[in-house]
């Protein structure tokens, strides 16, 4: 990871800010159209196939903290995503005692390095929620508009799954899914008894070869460490680097964009950024600017892009810039399955994520909350690292001898080691990920009093869950108990109640935040139009999750990719027609 600024030209056809899913897809499509592209990234470049960048297949003892997380790698010392909820020198603030935690990954590929690769299409209902339940707003486009792009993304990047024919969980072009593991089969026993569907997961790891550049999954369960065989999707390995090899793409790393610059007529003519290396300000010129910095970061850039033509920042005149910020809901529960105690040891690592999941299966008309959630399942015998064997003080009571008496081993010593081995691989659990209702009153804005270490004004968040999300979390907890109990598991911990909003994760913790530059064909209710083109600045486009009108209970990445491809096609066409 060398520190360097590339000596490059200072004028391009297109500048893309951010190298995550949206920026990566735009860099590929726009460069393939023959355009010269500059990708401006706030973090560093890396390639997991290079030995010096590799964290995959490293045993825990290669880490002085045995794989435990740090502030910049909250998901473990070998996790490839650099950043986290708190980044030194890049603060954000919160308003009126409300909570929002903002997760960022400062590196090529952005948060696609962190993401669990769950690759779900939004379904027809997910674009028209207001028409169904009267809350929030419909998208100005429907599933039929994005379907051809979802199809193309499936084929380009690769996703495994199974054809199920569920209306709001559209099938795609699937590679064969991996087989369920033992804990997933036990959970399925519980789900079947409870009448809750469980189907193969839909994740973007290659279970079959799709091209000569990328390898095939060898089931090490470490996708979060970035794959040296390029068998999982991340924007760096699958989009940015291939685009740089094939087309006219220059990558600017350690470059923190301050603002989009505009001419006297208000048209974008480039960006200005601060180099993290020499802390100097640089300018780049272009005919078109594409923002893919993440929903909140792109909103921040727009708000900071003040000029004579845009006195309050670009898109502020819509009245909704930064508004309707919303994250997925989340809650979890776990149990211990007596039948899995003393289990045989074998490698069941699989892909770095769930082999089976539950899509939303209920009809909200019979429920006291709107919108649904999907359930992700976990368990099994992953590689032990820091924390393995923890919680024995409370877990050992579940070890019983043939007469039903608790483990006699007690205390410490050889008996403790024995019990850790006996229990290992017998705990399992699940996490719900659900749809929240976008609110005008949940927003980010510029904090007038705080700047980051580069002198750029920072975001201030205001976010509150409503009764809808809290009731949904309550339903999750009831469902989790039903599945675990039916599977034969003993519930661990106590059931979260109203005092903790039923275990509902705080806003921002699920890292699916969207909606800050939402799309609408009415310039007074959306920052961008249905082509993700900024109403107030026709040669400025947004390709991250900012334009989402509503975030379904599905992980946003597949929709970001499809939307970014569609937006990029539109940019090429508009340039050809000389409209921008």
């Amino acid at each position, binding site marked *: 990871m060398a520190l360097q600024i590339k000596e490059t030209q200072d004028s391009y056809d297109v500048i893309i800010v951010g190298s995550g899913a949206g920026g990566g897809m735009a860099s590929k499509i726009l460069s393939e159209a023959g355009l010269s592209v500059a990708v401006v990234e706030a973090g560093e470049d890396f390639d997991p196939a290079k030995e010096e960048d590799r964290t995959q297949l490293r045993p825990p003892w290669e880490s002085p*903290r045995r794989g435990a997380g740090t502030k910049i790698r909250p998901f473990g010392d070998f996790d490839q995503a650099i950043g986290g909820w708190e980044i030194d020198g890049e603060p954000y603030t919160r308003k009126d005692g409300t909570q929002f935690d903002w997760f960022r990954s400062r590196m090529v590929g952005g948060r696609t390095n962190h993401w669990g690769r769950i690759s779900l299409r939004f379904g027809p209902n997910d674009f028209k929620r207001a028409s169904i339940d009267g809350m929030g707003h419909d998208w100005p486009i429907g599933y039929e508009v994005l379907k051809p792009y979802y199809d193309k993304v499936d084929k380009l990047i690769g996703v495994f799954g199974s054809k199920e024919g569920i209306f709001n969980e559209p099938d795609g072009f699937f590679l064969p899914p991996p087989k369920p593991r033992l804990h997933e089969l036990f959970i399925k026993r519980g789900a079947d008894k409870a009448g809750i569907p469980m189907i193969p997961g839909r994740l973007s790891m290659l279970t079959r070869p799709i091209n*000569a550049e990328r390898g095939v999954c060898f089931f090490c369960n470490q996708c979060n460490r*970035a794959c040296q065989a390029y*068998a999982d999707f991340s924007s760096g390995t699958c989009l940015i680097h291939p685009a740089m090899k094939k087309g006219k793409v220059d990558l600017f790393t350690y470059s923190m964009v301050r603002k989009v610059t505009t001419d006297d007529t208000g048209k974008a003519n480039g960006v200005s950024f601060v180099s993290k290396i020499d802390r100097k300000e640089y300018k780049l010129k272009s005919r078109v600017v594409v923002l893919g910095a993440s929903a909140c970061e792109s909103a921040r850039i727009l708000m900071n892009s003040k000029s004579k033509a845009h006195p309050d920042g670009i898109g502020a005149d819509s009245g909704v810039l930064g508004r309707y910020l919303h994250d997925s809901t989340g809650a979890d529960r776990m149990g211990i399955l007596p039948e899995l105690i003393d289990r045989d040891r074998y490698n069941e690592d699989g892909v770095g994520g769930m082999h089976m999941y539950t899509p939303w299966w209920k009809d909200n008309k019979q429920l006291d909350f709107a919108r649904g959630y999907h359930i992700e399942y976990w368990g099994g015998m992953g590689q032990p690292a820091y924390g393995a064997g923890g919680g024995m003080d409370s877990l050992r009571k579940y070890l019983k001898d043939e007469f039903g008496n608790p483990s006699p081993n007690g205390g410490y*010593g050889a008996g403790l080691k024995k019990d850790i081995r006996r229990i290992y691989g017998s705990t399992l659990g699940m996490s719900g990920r659900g749809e929240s209702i976008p609110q005008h009153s949940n927003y980010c804005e510029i904090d007038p009093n705080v700047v980051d270490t580069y002198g750029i004004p920072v975001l201030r968040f205001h976010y509150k869950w409503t009764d809808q999300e809290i009731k949904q979390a309550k339903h999750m907890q009831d469902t989790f108990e039903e599945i675990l109990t039916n599977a034969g598991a003993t519930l661990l911990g106590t059931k979260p109640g109203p005092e903790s909003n039923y275990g509902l994760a705080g806003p921002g913790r699920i890292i699916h935040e969207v909606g800050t530059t939402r799309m609408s064909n009415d310039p007074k209710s959306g920052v961008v139009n249905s082509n993700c083109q900024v109403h107030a600045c026709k040669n400025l486009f947004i390709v991250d999750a900012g334009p989402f009108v509503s975030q379904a209970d599905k992980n946003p990445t597949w929709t970001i990719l499809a939307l970014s491809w569609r937006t990029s096609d539109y940019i090429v066409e508009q340039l050809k027609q000389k409209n921008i």
Partner: protein
Amino acid sequence: MNRRENLKLLFAGSIGAGLLLGCEPEQVKLQGEVIGTPGGRTEEEKARDAKLLAEKFFTEAELKKITTLVDLIMPADEQSPAATAL
């Protein structure tokens, strides 16, 4: 790259390196210049790990006591060595 080539590469990259040098991975680590976790570290992380590893937190006497204690908690058994033997 097909699966076989992947595996070949993986072995060349991890286990193979140790075999070629004719010594155990631990020895390779001791000879190398890696301070802290290897692989994809930022400059800040390298500096922080180097600083932490240079610090002496426990006194010799404390360390001796802790060594005895962890081996009492995690002693050798038929399947694995004692905690400090690793």
